[in-house]
């Protein structure tokens, strides 16, 4: 905290987003960079709270006041060191995190929170620009070999931590790109793929081996995995999308969101797609089912593809603009959130339950829905879903995208063959060291936690790396990452 009254002098001022018209015509990132003075001024708004709620709000425990202080001083390299001490990939979280830290920021009580996420992005981008982020290979190799299955944020975090602890790490990825959802799931306008690639390059130079197109349990036997490596970490994500088993689901033109988003990312990466498999919103009436981040990603993508109209339907009620008293600060605010995509177009509707689809020639044409009343509660106090009689309505549509979340990791293949225990939700069960029921096999990220944020994935990965290092070495110098539950 260079300036104790910084928050009185500067208002919150996030970096500019490119104009809507301009950005709808391409897939490039939305945000521009701050001038350095503005970044410092925004850093000075941090009050250096003795009880930094932001730091608690961040799943990684990013030491936010400390890097804000360094930013205010203009010590960007020190700021980067602070940031990296808890977060391997601030350039990812600086772009695609919903920033629970900002929600918890003390200034958020009666003012606007510090622009923590953008400061994080700025620090990380400067780190690459200035060459401060460079390979840091370990000084000593332990000779131990570790396989990490899945190259999403959790897998990358595991790999970097374990490599730095001196182990030889091989990351196996069934897709053709490293990065998991970072690369294939998240649209480029939120996270440019170059941002992922430059980090992967650094890691490769540090000594991490990346193998793509390796599908463990299918074309790489599980037995070999266990035999050839001293330990394994499963970071294969929660990829089983939630489907909507209603009449008409089998019609063409109804897709899981991930089918849609990954295809667009592959196209942007320069791949070609069989026209018969092409899913495009161009000129179509699009309905997105699901009001979350994936839904918003679909929305931005559909608008860029030239959709005629896009509806985003949500089963739950529209959240309030401000917190309810039952949801006080610093809890995650259950409020209406708008992504930049919502600035670009689309129509949102709430309290909608999809009953069925109808169409012609095997193609979807109508979505049949009914309105829901959530006002009654069941005996446990939970809101009850009640259809409102007579509120049935129909939406004309050509393309329906199901963005209703994910269930758990795919069980067939690797997981079944390994025979690791699952939790009741179908995720891989782990102990406090992130080890599965199989000694030497660890798991982290969405695969064990269930679908969640990138920031959680990194935290899970770091934690798993610690447990794994401890397993291999009997002691560890790697830090904890997940919050200790008091």
């Amino acid at each position, binding site marked *: 905290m260079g300036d104790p009254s910084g*928050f009185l002098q500067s208002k919150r001022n996030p970096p500019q987003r490119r104009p809507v018209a301009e950005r709808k015509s391409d897939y490039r990132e939305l945000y521009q960079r701050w001038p350095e003075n503005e970044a410092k001024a925004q850093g000075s708004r941090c009050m250096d709270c*003795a*009880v930094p709620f932001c730091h*608690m709000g961040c799943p990684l425990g990013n030491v936010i006041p400390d890097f804000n202080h360094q930013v205010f001083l203009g010590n960007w390299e020190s700021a980067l060191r602070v940031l990296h001490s808890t977060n391997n990939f601030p350039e990812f979280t600086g772009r695609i995190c919903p920033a629970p830290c900002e929600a918890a920021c003390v200034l958020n*009580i009666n003012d606007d929170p510090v622009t923590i996420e953008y400061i994080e992005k700025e620090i990380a981008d400067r780190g690459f620009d200035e060459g401060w982020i460079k390979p840091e290979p370990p*000084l000593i190799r332990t000779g131990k070999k570790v396989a990490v299955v899945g190259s999403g944020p959790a897998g990358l975090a595991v790999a970097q931590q374990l490599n730095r602890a001196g182990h030889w790490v091989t990351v196996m990825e069934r897709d053709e790109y490293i990065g998991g959802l970072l690369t294939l799931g998240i649209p480029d306008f939120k996270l440019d793929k170059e941002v992922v690639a430059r980090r992967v390059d650094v890691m490769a130079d540090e000594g991490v081996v990346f193998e793509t197109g390796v599908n463990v349990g299918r074309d790489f036997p599980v037995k070999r995995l266990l035999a050839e490596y001293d330990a394994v970490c499963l970071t294969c994500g929660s990829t089983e999308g939630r489907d909507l088993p209603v009449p008409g689901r089998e019609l063409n033109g109804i897709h899981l969101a991930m089918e849609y988003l990954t295809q667009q990312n592959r196209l942007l990466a320069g791949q070609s797609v069989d026209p018969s498999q092409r899913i495009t919103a161009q000129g179509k009436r699009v309905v997105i089912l699901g009001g979350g981040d994936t839904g918003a990603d679909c929305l931005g993508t559909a608008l860029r593809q030239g959709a005629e109209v896009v509806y985003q339907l949500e089963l739950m009620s529209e959240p309030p603009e401000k917190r309810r008293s039952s949801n006080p600060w610093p809890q995650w605010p259950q409020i209406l959130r708008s992504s930049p995509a919502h600035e670009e177009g689309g129509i949102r509707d709430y309290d909608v339950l999809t009953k069925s689809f109808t169409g012609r020639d095997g193609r979807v044409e109508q979505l049949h829905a009914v309105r829901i009343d959530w006002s009654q509660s069941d005996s446990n106090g939970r809101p009850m879903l009640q259809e409102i009689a007579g509120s049935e309505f129909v939406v004309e549509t050509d393309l329906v995208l199901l963005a209703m979340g994910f269930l758990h990791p795919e069980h067939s293949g690797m997981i079944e063959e390994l025979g690791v225990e699952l939790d009741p939700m179908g995720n891989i069960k782990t102990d406090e060291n992130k080890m599965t029921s199989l000694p030497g096999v660890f798991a982290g990220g969405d695969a064990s936690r269930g679908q969640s944020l990138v920031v959680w994935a990194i935290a899970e990965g770091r934690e798993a790396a610690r447990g794994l290092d401890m397993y291999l070495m009997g002691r560890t110098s790697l830090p904890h990452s997940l919050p200790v539950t008091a």
Partner: protein
Amino acid sequence: MNELKELAKFGLYSPEQEHDSCGVGVVANIKGGKSHQIVSEGIQVLINLGHRGACGRDPETGDGSGVMIQMPDSFFQIECASLGMPLPPANDYGVGMVFLPPQEDAQVKCQALIERVIVDEGLILLGWRDVPTDPRKLGRDARAVCPKIRQVFIGRGPGIEDPAEIERKLYVVRKIIEHSLADCGITEDEADYFYICSMSCHTIVYKGLLMALQIEGFYLDLADERVESAFALVHSRFSTNTLGHWKLAHPYRYLAHNGEINTLRGNINWMHARETQFESPMFGADMAKIPPMMTPGASDTACIDNALELLLMTGRDLSHAMLMLIPEAWEQHESMSQEKKDFYEYHSCLMEPWDGPAMIVSSDGHSICALLDRNGLRPFRYTITKDDKLVMASETGVLDVPAANVRQKGRLEPGRMFLVSFDEGRIIGDEELKHDLANRQPYGQWLKDNKVSLDDLPSPAGPSRISLPDVLQQQQAFGFTLEELRMMTSAMAISGAEAVGSMGNDAPLAVLSDQNQLLFNYFKQLFAQVTNPPLDAIREDLVTSLEAFIGREQNLFEETPEHCHQLKLHSPIISSEEFEKIRHLDVGNLRSITLSTLFDAQSGPGSMKTALDNLCEQASKAIIDGYGIIILSDRGVDSRWAPIPSMLATAAVHHHLIREGTRTKAGLVVESGDPREVHHFALLIGYGAGAVYPYLALETVRQMAETGELNGTKPDYAEKNFIKANEKGVLKVMSKMGISTVQSYRGAQIFEAVGLSQELIDEYFTWTPSRIGGIGLDTLEADALERHGRAFAGEQVAAERDLPPGGYYQWRRDGEFHQWNPDAIAKLQDAAQANNRESYKEFARLVNDQSKRTATLRGLLEFKKDRPSVPLEEVEPASEIVKRFATGAISLGSISKEAHETLGIAMNRMGARSNTGEGGEDYRRYTTDANGDTSSSAIKQVASGRFGVTPNYLVNATDLQIKMAQGSKPGEGGQLSGNKIDDYIGWVRKTTPGVELISPPPHHDIYSIEDLAQLIHDLKTVNSDARIHVKLVAEVGVGTVAAGVAKGHADVVLISGHDGGTGNSPESSIKYAGLPWELGIAETQQVLVANDLRGRISVQADGQLKTGRDAAIAALLGAEEFGYATAALVVNGCIMLRKCHLGTCSVGIATQDPELRKMFAGKPEYVINYFTFVAEEMREIMAELGFRTVNEMVGRADLLDSREAVDHWKDKGLDLSRLLYRDPKSDEVAVYCCEDQDHGLDTALDHQLIALSQRALEHQEPVTIDLPIRNSDRTVGAMLSGKIAKRYGEDGLPAGSIKIRFTGSAGQSFGAFLAKGIDIHLEGDTNDYLGKGISGGSIVVCPPSDATFVAEDNIIVGNTAMYGATGGEVYVRGRAGERFCVRNSGVRAVIEGVGDHGCEYMTGGAVAVLGSTGRNFAAGMSGGVAFVYDDEGDFEIRFNPGLADLEPVTDPEDIAMLRSMIEDHLNYTGSAPAQRILDDWENALPRFKKIMPRDYRRILDERKARGESKELETAPNG
């Protein structure tokens, strides 16, 4: 006696912590003529000082009094002859006055011992005499423990020629008897009775557990007309305990003492360490029979008496010996002669000062020597009559002396002494005495030839710098964190001052933490409270000194040039250049040797112990080899070698050498990577280090500067700043205990350990209090190895090269646990704001359930459920319980008006109590608003700054709280920076807006326990309906202080924990000063119950209380009231920014910024919701434990259990049994407050004044009163002022409504809180605290009309006049003592001369001094104006230019003001100096100096520029 012994064994009571203070008096015939009249007048003086003594439970048993007189030879000749025991001539025999056990067989054994030793040592046993006494005159308790009192007569043996030799031989005899007592076959209890009051040829002491009035009736000798003496030295004791001891009464064998020796532990250790060096031809082989010189376990006075006796036995004069023990402040004295400085400097090579407030009168029978310590914190007034009688005492007016017979009235000044020589028949003054002493030897030449100054030594080449990656690794090995670099180190390096912070400490005690802890963290700083005052090392730096010698000490029985062949250091914290000089030192016998304090990290458990043993052995050898300086160094940490904690290495060597008796043969210098904070340096010095070279901290600072982390501070400056900040900090830590010099602080061990095992303490930190057991060497080793491992084992991890983040000061997720963490804060806010019971429960669970992460001692406790529970509805309702709750003392100013009033309204609605804090209160809050609410704080605080303490403030309170200490910074004052004082805050505090305010560390009217009793009396006099509180902070001995507070008639004692909150304190104080309240409350309950005092005083606990469980535990440990502060702010929105000191509170609480104040979102309802939840939680616990009322559960420590927790923490060796000890007496006496104190107000003179003022009070008609007055009439005028305030509020009565004329010597606090409308004219003189808090009245003091002494040369008024005055006028025809107009904020005063520290901390009003002043005038003066008539032209050297400027009086407004003040003075007093000045105005005016505070002028100029008048015309709205 047994009860306290049991308590000391099983409970928290420590007898070493007993304190006393008192009245001292002397009556003497200067010419040496002996008479019985002198003896009886001495006893009369004792009686007139009676109010300075105290009594305990039994109103007829005093704390002790006594008298020392010359040997009444003619009386004994006759008496002994009649007993068949003819005596040799005077001086050929000595008398031992002996207390013997009452049990006859024990008596026989003791007497046999005495007789045997006398004969063995070659003296003649003449016989025994029963001292005639009348036990019926004793109080019940005194009688119960009354010894058998006999005198033994001892004749000069054959072969003893020198009259001095028999005195030496008697000393040897007494020492042998004392040492052999344990072996003479009597029980320990019987031995407790045994005591030799005196054994001398020249003096005899009659004393006992007596009240002043009883002594003559008890000791029949004293009433016997044949008992004659040229002097009577008397003493009346006020002790903190009740179960008094006959032997603890004063006078001791050579002296009587008023005050306290703060450095006692160190002094004892050092004296002990010197013993092996003692040699003297006078004693020869007898020398071996004397040690230990210091009686083990004796009181501070007994110890200094031992030390004085020893020095006298070396052949030194009484005055010489006294000056060695208590030298004046010479180091920074502007005008002291070189010969005197040489004398002091030379003697500082011989021994360290005994530091602390002390007024000592001593006698060897031939002379009487009186001396006041360097701070002058005890009053001592004397009168010399025209017929050569000297009357001196703690007060004036103790013996009626006709004014016409007075030759001189004076006072003893700080650091001064005088001697009455009966042989010469005259008084020898300070100048002559010291001149003679200084010329006994060529001290100056000796110093020149032998002293070695660091500055004079050549600079050797320094060691090379440590490279950056190595520094990081070293920092890791020594446990540095990023947080401390960012918050602590950089603050010191940039600003040269310690970092400040706010809010309390909510992190775990070191022993309960799961983080790696430095050994330093287990120690808590102790501090002065009540029984002695802390000092202000900033404003009163003239008495402080960082200078000290190190090297080899010589035999104390001699004086040779070689004695001062030592190395002189300016400061105990040294730079690399200075260190290198010491490392290469080789001058004469001064050579240094470096011993490594590293241990082998790889050789398994126990290697640290091996290294320590080895280190001690090497130190012994170094001394044998003749090294005068031993350097303990942990340089060279690498992957194999780890550092022993520097604190451990230093203390280990220090105590090893003390035990070995060689400690004074070498100085210790510590070269270490460890120390980096004030607390660290204070500890190293406190455990014996002569100098500390913090090489790693200095390297760190340099590198931070070089890498631009210090706002551009250059490396050299950064290093200097860092050292300066730590030096200032160490001075402050010393000052907290009232210690002035590093030389006496060194080795004084002013710390308490929490969480260290007794074994560890006994071995390495001997005598340090440590009351709950704890870790041993194995844990210290493991922690050291863990730090070492971080640096050297984890090096293969590429990304882990930074320091750990910390989390000790600020919450960090993976750092230290904090009770105020995000979850707890969020839950509590939701609970209070949404009135959500579930959230409260969740909050309470987070706080209470410390099974996983324990932070507090109470976290280790569980309730024992061995009583049948009761139904919840039978438990007293929450609405009753909340009345026991109070909010903390948070001043308006430190928090906003909105926040302050919210607390007031909430607490008043519940019938609970809010607290003003130290900032006054807007009197408009005393009226009820339209809602029926009032925001007036029930508790009004009276703190050292006395801001806004007016009669109106005092009468509008249900409780008046005297803040002696504050948990976050006990022993320190406060500061409110100017920018936080807007018009409103300034108006409320009666100070100038925009001008910084200083609260002094001590109350300047409380330097001792009897002073506190006086302030309690003052406050009770103004508002007899209010309960008087005394707020203390837990530390070892607080229970004993609380007992003293109870005896001083306080109604409530508040024991705060170390962890209490603050708006602005040094971080090191927040973290390291004071102890947990659990220890304080338990100790308080134990001691009060054992003394049967608990029934008359309520006990309140505060300090990080958060839940109902906290209160329940406090109650079971002994509290019946409970204070909550931080939590009450949190419910109003506080989110623990800890930025209160910066005023940038984003939720509008701790700020005066109008924009931020708008953010305040608190409501009284939130506070009420919270306290209701707390009370409900408490009720549930009560129901479960089977209590229907809180009173039933007070002190039931037997229902607390620590077994499970202690099992959990087994490896840490905790033992809470002392905390949970319940005195068996608890079943017999009151254990909670159930009766009223007798404040003794019935006899107050004010009752007469009120009766005589009825017409003025009722009808505002003027009245005139004429009455005599004497010194026992105290606080005169205050009760009348209270009546006026109650009726007429802030306005008072019209001027001159009540005119009072007094004749005589007025007692203390004359005219205190005098309200508008009262004019007092006193003909006579006054004692201390004249016009304390005067608030609009007027006082004139003149000598009696028949006095012939020159008034302007004599002391008419005591010390600390007009302290905290807020308005009115005072004219004094004569001089005053120290601290005239201290913290004055409004009185207009004229006087003819003042002592030291005049106008200190003044913030307003006007003072004219028509004569000379003492030193340090205007220190800390930030407002108001003073004029001094500087006839000699040397005022400037006595003026403190810190905050004010000195200028001529030229402004016409000033001239007019000064002239009118002098004219008024002449008018009221007929002053001769005033007349002379006015007669020669043209020539006199240029001799006046105006003292103008700089800040004050700036503000006045600004106001002028804005066209505003000097003062606010109307009351501003906040």
